[in-house]
């Protein structure tokens, strides 16, 4: 539970003509992680892939490109018989390829046509307000035609040069079309240059621009329609072939993986050596699997684990099913190393605990619980499930603390006794029960715990929780260090911190007069010297972290209070500022309900993010910092979990 799974290094040796059977059996067993062989100067060489690998990968690429073109998604589908798919794979693939090609070519053509029309339209737009047939723009012997943008009206300048001209001017777009005799064209062009003339290309079509554009728009709508119908065809193909594509993709992926396996294996002229890792509990299964597949002709043996091996053992978690969702949280940080404590089970307790202490509200717990169960039911993704399980654990803890705090969506359930009198709670007649006077700040400890009225006590309490949590971390660190570098290293590196803390505690006791203060100082100094010996100069520098780390746990109350304040502000705005409960129902009631729903929806989202992140941070920074190294390699066995196909 607190350790990763025991692993065994196994070596499989055999004659090359049974390699294929062996690889096949290993792939089916999905247990053995093959260690890639790296060629060195020895006689052993990397093996050659089986069969016609290039043919298979060609098909795989084809099926994948078709899949992405059709937008086939990973969905739950009925399992199909793999041998049946294999027999008519080629025919169906070719047929599918032809169909898809036809449709996609059609679509590409249509899209190109659409683009062409659009660019022609763009060219025509400047000429729309000039009512001239485009044929009239060219084909003259004695006339020069200018068409383009200008910055100002050029009519006066042109009339100064010649009286025989024809000018069309569109002031809206500042476009001119000007006809002048050819002999004047140079003078005119100089005059136009002064007006910052920018020539426009005349599109190579005939007709009046405005009517051409109207035609083009009709054509465009037509093309868009056609594209939509091709999209529908693609969708049809998707529906028709999705199962086949998913199944054959899986099958071909498995084939490629198997045929490429020899590239990871050491071989000689006639033998092969497969080196790798397997969880110790499955070692016997491996032997049986390989022996049955090869009629006992391959030899499986386990190897002694060297200290060099320990650095590269693949790590597989070994946790009970209840706490296994928290492996996700561990992976987010780093996998443990082989000889290290796997803190997943500890996080399974402390993460929901802190989350619940921060949020602690019955209303939000119920909303988020419903949300988590809903998502778990309707989303089948494998990545979402553990996250939802974590959320459910957290909400159960939130519900418990919600009852303890007596809070529902920011409303107190029980009445609150303050200096200014009694404030009624949500449940009529539910009186706060005084338990005992808290030693801090003259506050009264009550049930339910009104967090807003017990701030001082809770700040100290959460800091104390922090001290306990951190010390658990130091103890784990001690165990880890003891395993890795022996007892004395553990004592000086991790034990010293506990001695230092003890010293501080004794000094505090001395301060209130229960002990001679010198005793505390002495213990503190002993711890300090041990720390310097264990960690060098780094130790004393990190001493203040002891304080800041434990104070960091006060975020449990601080973040919780901020969530309460947001919720009660929403309630205040909704029920006291815009609608007084007990008055007649009117427009303001509806507005109040909208404010209430929107505000609490927002706070619900914040209720996942803020407590989650802070509870996580307390684990990662404050807790893990004391003992955890991590950096283990993920156990990734050679094999495949079939989702769409089955072998009969």
């Amino acid at each position, binding site marked *: 539970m607190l350790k990763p799974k025991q692993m065994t290094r196994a070596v499989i040796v055999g004659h090359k003509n049974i390699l294929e059977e062996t690889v096949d059996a290993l792939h089916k067993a999905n247990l053995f992680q093959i260690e890639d062989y790296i060629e060195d100067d020895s006689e052993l060489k990397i093996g050659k892939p089986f069969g016609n690998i290039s043919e298979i990968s060609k098909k795989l690429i084809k099926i994948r490109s078709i899949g992405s073109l059709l937008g086939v998604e990973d969905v739950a589908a009925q399992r199909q018989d793999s041998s049946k798919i294999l027999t008519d794979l080629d025919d169906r693939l070719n047929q599918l390829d032809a169909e898809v090609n036809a449709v996609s070519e059609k679509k590409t053509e249509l899209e190109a046509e659409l683009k062409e029309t659009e660019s022609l339209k763009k060219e025509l737009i400047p000429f729309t307000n000039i009512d001239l047939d485009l044929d009239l723009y060219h084909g003259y012997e004695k006339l020069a035609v200018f068409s383009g943008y200008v910055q100002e009206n050029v009519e006066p300048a042109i009339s100064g040069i010649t009286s025989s001209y024809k000018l069309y001017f569109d002031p809206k777009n500042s476009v001119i079309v000007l006809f002048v005799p050819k002999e004047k064209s140079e003078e005119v062009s100089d005059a136009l240059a002064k007006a910052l003339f920018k020539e426009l290309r005349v599109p190579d079509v005939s007709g009046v621009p405005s009517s051409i554009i109207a035609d083009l728009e009709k054509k465009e709508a037509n093309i868009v329609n056609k594209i939509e119908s091709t999209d529908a065809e693609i969708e049809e193909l998707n529906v028709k072939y999705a199962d086949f594509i998913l199944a054959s993709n899986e099958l071909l992926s498995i084939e490629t993986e198997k045929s490429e396996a020899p590239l990871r294996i050491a071989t000689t002229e006639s033998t092969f050596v497969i080196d790798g890792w397997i969880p110790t509990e499955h070692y016997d299964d491996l032997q049986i699997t390989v022996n049955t597949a090869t009629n006992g002709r391959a030899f499986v043996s386990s190897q002694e684990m060297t200290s060099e091996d320990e650095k590269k053992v693949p790590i597989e978690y070994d946790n009970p099913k209840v706490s296994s969702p928290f492996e996700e949280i561990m*992976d*987010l*940080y780093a996998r443990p190393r082989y000889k290290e404590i796997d803190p997943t089970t500890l996080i399974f307790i402390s993460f929901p605990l802190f989350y619940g202490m921060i949020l602690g509200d019955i209303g939000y717990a119920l909303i988020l619980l419903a949300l988590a169960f809903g998502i778990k039911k309707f989303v089948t993704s494998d990545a979402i499930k553990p996250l939802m399980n974590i959320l459910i654990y957290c909400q159960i803890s939130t519900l418990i603390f919600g009852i303890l705090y007596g809070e529902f969506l920011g409303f107190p359930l029980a009445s609150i006794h303050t200096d200014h009198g009694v404030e009624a709670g949500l449940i009529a007649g539910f009186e706060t029960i005084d338990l005992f006077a808290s030693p801090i700040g003259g506050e009264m400890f009550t049930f339910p715990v009104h967090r807003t009225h017990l*701030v*001082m006590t809770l*700040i100290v309490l959460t800091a104390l929780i922090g001290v306990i949590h951190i010390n658990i971390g130091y103890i784990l660190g001690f165990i880890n260090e003891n395993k890795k570098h022996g007892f004395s290293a553990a004592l000086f590196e991790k034990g010293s911190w506990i001695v230092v803390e003890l010293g501080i505690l004794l000094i505090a006791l001395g301060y209130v007069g229960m002990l001679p203060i010198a005793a505390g100082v002495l213990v503190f100094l002993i711890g300090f010297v041990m720390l310097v010996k264990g960690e060098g100069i780094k130790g004393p520098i990190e001493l203040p972290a002891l304080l*800041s780390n434990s*104070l*960091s746990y*006060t*975020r449990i*109350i*601080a*973040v919780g*209070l*901020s969530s309460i304040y947001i919720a009660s502000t929403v309630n205040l705005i909704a029920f006291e500022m815009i609608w007084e409960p007990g008055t007649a129902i009117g427009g303001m009631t509806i507005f109040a309900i909208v404010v209430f729903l929107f505000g609490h929806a927002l706070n619900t989202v914040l209720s996942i993010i803020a407590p989650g*992140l*802070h509870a*996580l*941070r307390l684990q*990662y*920074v404050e807790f893990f910092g004391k003992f955890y190294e991590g950096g283990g390699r993920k156990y990734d066995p050679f094999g495949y979990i079939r989702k769409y196909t089955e072998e009969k």
Partner: protein
Amino acid sequence: MAEPVTSTITMMDPAGLQAIGAGLAVGLTGLASGIAEKEIGTAAIGAMAENEGLFGKGLILTVIPETIVIFGLVVALLIS
């Protein structure tokens, strides 16, 4: 004859000063966290663009300066 000046005229309301102090504690530490998180966040996103596996580490690093504003909040709670 001039009236004797009473000392209460020049006094400020202690509750108001407390509120200002608490506001400063939360506001300034909030700014400080924001500045620190800005730098870390941009770097973390840059790192994530290269390697998506760094999401967890980036997230943790980004939340670390949040302690500053939490301390500010605690101080504000202590004052008020």
